């Protein structure tokens, strides 16, 4: 089980063009994400960033448009058949399962417990979790929980990886180290990756380009440098100014 290279040819492109209405809010965005070129979706609280990820993963119904992964239209598929891995905000590990069984979960859904545990071994090793394998999530630090969440999602061998505010549950002092580690793992995964964040530092470290979402609409897209050179809205101006500090 060798890690895929940063620009692995095996991974498909993610095409999303979705409109989702949740309560009184509508979120509409269209974007393509090539494997090995992570996209950061950045925006203020309540802009609809998490809803956008949920739509790609199939966790909320899409009102218009659709999601394609390579040449697969996945709109009619439930989340369990989309091959979209998600690292949730606060990680949402299974509290009743050990680290090993969390990482083995996807394999367990397809086979016996013994086979799933065996399949989880290399993933535990790759993410430095072997020593923690018998612990329950309640006994992990934030950084360890993040590694388990990532290993659990990638052990399912998804085509697409979605990360929802992966740094927000971590102590501030830890964030710089964990950001570098996460960036390395995302490169290693090599597939289409979408990261939701409100931090330009996360976007700079983890993504090639940025899509700004404000009030459910895309207000700007480009690299961070392009955003800094010509901010389209006051929010983008404040954001790039803050990231320069």
């Amino acid at each position: 089980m060798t890690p895929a290279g940063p620009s692995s040819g095996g991974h498909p492109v993610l095409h999303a063009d979705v409109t989702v209405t949740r309560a009184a809010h509508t979120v509409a965005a269209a974007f393509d994400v090539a494997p090995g070129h992570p996209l950061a979706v950045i925006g203020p609280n309540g802009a609809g960033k998490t809803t956008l990820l949920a739509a790609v993963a199939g966790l909320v119904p899409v009102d218009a448009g659709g999601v394609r992964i390579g040449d697969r239209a996945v709109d009619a598929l439930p989340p369990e058949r989309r091959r979209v891995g998600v690292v949730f905000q606060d990680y949402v590990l299974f509290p009743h399962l050990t680290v090993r069984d969390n990482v083995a979960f996807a394999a367990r859904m397809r086979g016996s417990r013994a086979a799933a545990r065996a399949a989880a071994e290399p993933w535990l090793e790759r993410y430095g979790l072997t020593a923690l394998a018998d612990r329950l999530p309640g006994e992990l630090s934030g950084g360890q929980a993040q590694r388990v969440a990532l290993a659990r999602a990638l052990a399912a061998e998804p085509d697409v990886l979605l990360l929802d505010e992966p740094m927000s549950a971590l102590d501030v002092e830890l964030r710089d180290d964990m950001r570098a580690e996460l960036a390395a793992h995302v490169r290693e995964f090599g597939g289409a990756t979408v990261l939701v964040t409100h931090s330009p530092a996360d976007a700079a470290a983890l993504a090639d380009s940025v899509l700004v979402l404000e009030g459910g609409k895309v207000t700007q897209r480009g690299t961070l440098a392009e955003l800094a050179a010509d901010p389209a809205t006051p929010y983008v101006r404040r954001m790039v100014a803050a990231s320069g500090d």
Partner: protein
Amino acid sequence: MAGANPAPRTLGRLAWPVAVLAGLGLAFLVLPLVALVVRAPWGDLAELVTRESVLEALVLSIVTAVLATAVCLVLGVPLAALLARSAGWAVLPRRLLRATVTVPLVLPPVVGGIALLLLLGRRGLVGSALYDWFGISVPFTTGAVVLAQVFVALPFLVFAVEGALRSADRRTELAAATLGASRTQVFRHVTLPLVAPGVAAGAVLCFTRALGEFGATITFAGSLPGVTRTLPIASYLAMQTDPDEAVALALLLLVVSVGVLLLLRDRWVPVVRG
């Protein structure tokens, strides 16, 4: 000087009238049980609890309470799931459903017994058809004891499981789905283990309530030795003829109730730990 400072007020301290009343309340809960244990006829206990009538009542009580708990689990867990899901319904049906489940909790058990008789008695709403067509007569059977216990105990299980379902993080179910779990697999591998402590707690409450059932049972099932005379009924009847036997029966009830609580608590504690 440190000595001049008044003692720091700690948030945990209660005002003394509150503390006194709390102590009285606690004493009121404990002292009757102390009296029961102190005045129990310890010398004759071995003879009393091995009497045929006592053993008969004990076995009947445990068998019917176990059956009632099993029925409550089978019907109550899905009912709890329905109740938890009803949070998204319109106000009226939601309140109606909740009120329906709550009624047996607030209803005097005797009323429940009369109602069961009017439903399932030989001339009852459903009972007359059961008797005319199949020759089945439900009242005054061991089955009637179980039904009476289910009627009064079911809400305890439903509310315990519903509480667990509501407090479980729904996102764990979504996470399981993104990892390839079907709806059935999500329920079996995530939802059920997460609410297991609630189910266990509900089953204990349900069992102890069924074990102590008196009013609905004596009304709907009567007091036939070995058939429907459970421990509480036997104890009540013995009080009038043989108080020592009544106390022995009461002590047995206490031991079984507390025993079940201790036994099951150890079972579900490891699950809660995560």
